[in-house]
Each structure stands twice: as C-alpha cells, then as structure tokens.
C-alpha cells in the first residue's frame, strides 16, 4: 500500500500503539483515516435528507425562506460562523502540534477548540431562546398568536401605522423583520367574527384564521411568491411554520454534532496528557479533527442557506 513497508528487515521495533493486524503504523493510520472518511460520507448523507427537505421546500415555496430568514439574526449567525471557523483553525493546529510532538501546544489548541464549541452552543442557546420565547417553534408547536403579537410589537416600535388594522380591517403589515410590505385586505365581517374579544393589539389570535378565510374567498391571487392564491397573513406565508421546522431540525442536528465533537475533544484532552501522541502516532487527534472539520463544513452551508437568503 505504500513504499514504506516496515516488514522485511525483521528488526523493526513495533510501536506500542500499532495493533498486531497492521503491517505498519502507516498502514494503520491510512486505514483509520479511510474508515473515518467513509463515516463522514454517511454523515453527509444523514444531513443530506434535511438538505433535501430544505431544497424541495425552497423550490416549491420560496416565499417561506424569503420571509423566514428575516426572523433569524444574521449577526449572531455570522459571529457563530467566525467562532466555528476559528475553532477549525485551532483544531488543525492541534493536529499539527501532535504531528510535531508538541504536547503543550496540543493541549492548548484542543482547549481553545473546546471553548469555541462552548461559545457556539452558547450563542445557539441565545438564538433558540429568542425563538422559543416568541413562539417560533417547529411544526405544530409553532404559536401563531405569539409570533404575530411579537411581529406587531416590533412593528409598533418601528413607529408607523400600528393602528391601521383596527376598524377598517386593513392590516398594513411590514412585519417586524422589515420584510417586504404587503397589504392584506380582510373582509370586515370576518375579521370581526374571528376576534370577538380581541386585545387592542389586534390581529394576533385570529390572523391565521383570516388567512383561511382568504383562501376560501380566493382574493388577491398570485401577487405573492409566485403561487396562485397563496395568501399571506400580515405579509407572511400562512405555512411559515415549515421554515422553522427546517431551521430547528437542521441547526438542531448540527448542534448535536457540535456536542459530540466537543465530547471527542474533551476525551482527547484527557488522554493526551500521557504524551502518547507524537509524529508516528496521532490517529485519534487526526480523526477527531476530521469530525470537527466536517461539523464546520456543514455549518458553512447552513449559515448562508438559513440566515442570508
């Protein structure tokens, strides 16, 4: 398998970490890496299912993403990208340190990588908390009333036309996120019927119902998102919860991978203390590094796809 075969001279001292079924440390190392790459391929396919869901919904309901991505905080997302990229560098430096046999540097780099992982999860927790507090949850947990209330609050803070949707049944919505403005004309009697004891903040509890009524009456066909009759609630697609299902599933699975990667790094930090890693044996660091880089690689795709477009 390589030009550096170790058997044949008969006097080669076996490395303490060479398993007996390998001809050489190099063969062992290359085989380990090959195995890891095969595993990473299955990881790509595992995430692939979710990427497939992302692209299918994006192709069929582009307005979900156009509206939904405004709900995510670009700044936090970009900071997290930087955190993960830096951690990727420190992981690469950790592998390098083990290759040149510098244990102190290996420990330092692994520790920084671990801390970057903590930072990433911390920021993710802040983001998740904001989403959960305002009802932006996946699937049927999505809380229409809360989210719309939240968006109207933001609207009020913007200080324009907060009262438009009272009385005349016109919800003049810009959305809290600065989404493109869309006016939804709700027939008066239906709005009234749908919110018998509506709080002054207006549409919140009833908006989704209004959307259903709209669909029934077939108003305003085709002026939004390219799907005939696909009607917005307050300028947002009524099935917006699908965006948050995709968001939580993709970032959630990714977050689990970050946690697993952090566990691997913590383990490396513990076992590297005896100085076992050096130029001729560093397979665990290399393989743990490959895993961590794959996690980074997936985030490189998730960030622009979810936060930016």
């Amino acid at each position, binding site marked *: 398998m390589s030009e550096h075969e170790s058997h044949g001279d008969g006097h080669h001292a076996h*490395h303490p970490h060479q398993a007996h079924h390998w001809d*050489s*440390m190099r063969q062992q*190392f290359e085989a380990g*890496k*090959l195995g890891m*790459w095969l595993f*990473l*391929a*299955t990881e*790509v*396919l595992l995430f692939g299912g979710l*990427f*497939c869901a992302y692209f*299918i919904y*994006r*192709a*069929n309901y582009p307005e979900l993403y156009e509206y939904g991505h405004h709900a995510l905080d*670009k700044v936090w997302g*970009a900071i997290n*990208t930087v955190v993960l*990229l*830096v951690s*990727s*560098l420190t*992981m*690469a*430096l950790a*592998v*390098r340190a083990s*290759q040149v046999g510098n244990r102190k540097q290996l420990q330092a780099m692994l520790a920084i990588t671990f801390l970057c992982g903590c930072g990433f999860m911390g920021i993710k927790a802040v983001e998740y908390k904001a989403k959960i507090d305002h009802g932006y949850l996946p*699937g*049927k947990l999505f809380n*229409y009333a809360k989210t719309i209330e939240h968006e109207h609050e933001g609207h009020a803070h913007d200080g324009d036309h907060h009262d438009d949707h009272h009385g005349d049944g016109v919800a003049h919505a810009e959305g809290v996120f600065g989404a493109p403005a869309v006016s939804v004309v709700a027939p008066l009697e239906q709005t009234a019927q749908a919110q018998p004891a509506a709080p002054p903040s207006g549409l919140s509890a009833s908006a989704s*119902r209004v*959307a*259903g*009524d709209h*669909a*029934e009456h077939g108003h305003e066909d085709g002026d939004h998102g390219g799907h005939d*009759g696909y*009607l917005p609630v307050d300028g947002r697609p*009524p*099935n917006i919860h699908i965006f948050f299902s995709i968001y939580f599933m993709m970032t959630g699975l990714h977050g689990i991978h970050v946690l697993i990667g952090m566990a691997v790094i913590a383990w490396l930090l513990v076992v590297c203390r005896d100085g076992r890693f050096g130029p*001729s*044996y*560093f397979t665990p660091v*290399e393989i743990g*590094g490959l895993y961590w*880089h*794959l996690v*980074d*690689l997936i985030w*490189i*795709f998730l*960030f*622009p*796809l979810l936060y*930016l*477009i």
Partner: protein
Amino acid sequence: MGDHSHGTDEHGHEHLGHPLSVRFLVGILMALLFLTVVTVGVSYIEMGRTVALLVALLVAVVKASLVALFFMHLRWDKPFNSVILVASMAFLILFIAFAKLDTGEYMHEITPMTEAPGYVEQGLKGN
C-alpha cells in the same frame, strides 16, 4: 511538498503526518473569514432569489473546499479519500434532483390542498 514528512524519529518510527506551517493554516482561516464577509455582504444586495441562492452556494462550496483540502489534509491524502467525499456530495445532489423532479409531478395536487379552507387551522390544534 509531500516528501519531507516521511522521515523517521529516533526510534525508527515513520513520521506519518504532513505538518503544515502555522502561517499557512492562519492564511487559510483569513481566506475563510474573508469569504464569510463576502457572503454576508452580498446578502444585502438586492438580486433575484435564484441568483442569491447560486452566489451563496458558490461561496459556501469554495469555503468548504478550503476546509476539506487544507484543514482536513485532502490535498496531501491518498486521492481515494477525496473520491469518497466528492461521491457522497454527488449522490446527495442526485438525491435532491430526483426528489425535486418527483414533487414536480405532484405539486399540482398538493397546492390545492394547502390552500383549502381550514388547512392552516388544522396545524393550530393545541395552540
């Protein structure tokens, strides 16, 4: 570039790795950070949704390639490891393409369902 790492240490063991210079690795990070700024920056520019998607994917593929080639050492690995990664991506693209073709067949049946009265309310149970 691949030869100087194949030395042996004092015990006669091979050096298996290919240590890269710190400067080189930091340079890769700088390139990645620059591309991150680019992808965030262009997201503020108004363009068509297809163009925006293609630009975002293009930048992401370049960034991913940098990580895979240099941080993950594919550049100096046996080519078969790269074949595995590229094949997994290729099959993923195939998977998505066929799934897209398939929903294309059904969308005209799905769309009326999602627009039917009460569709949204059904999703609201429990709220």
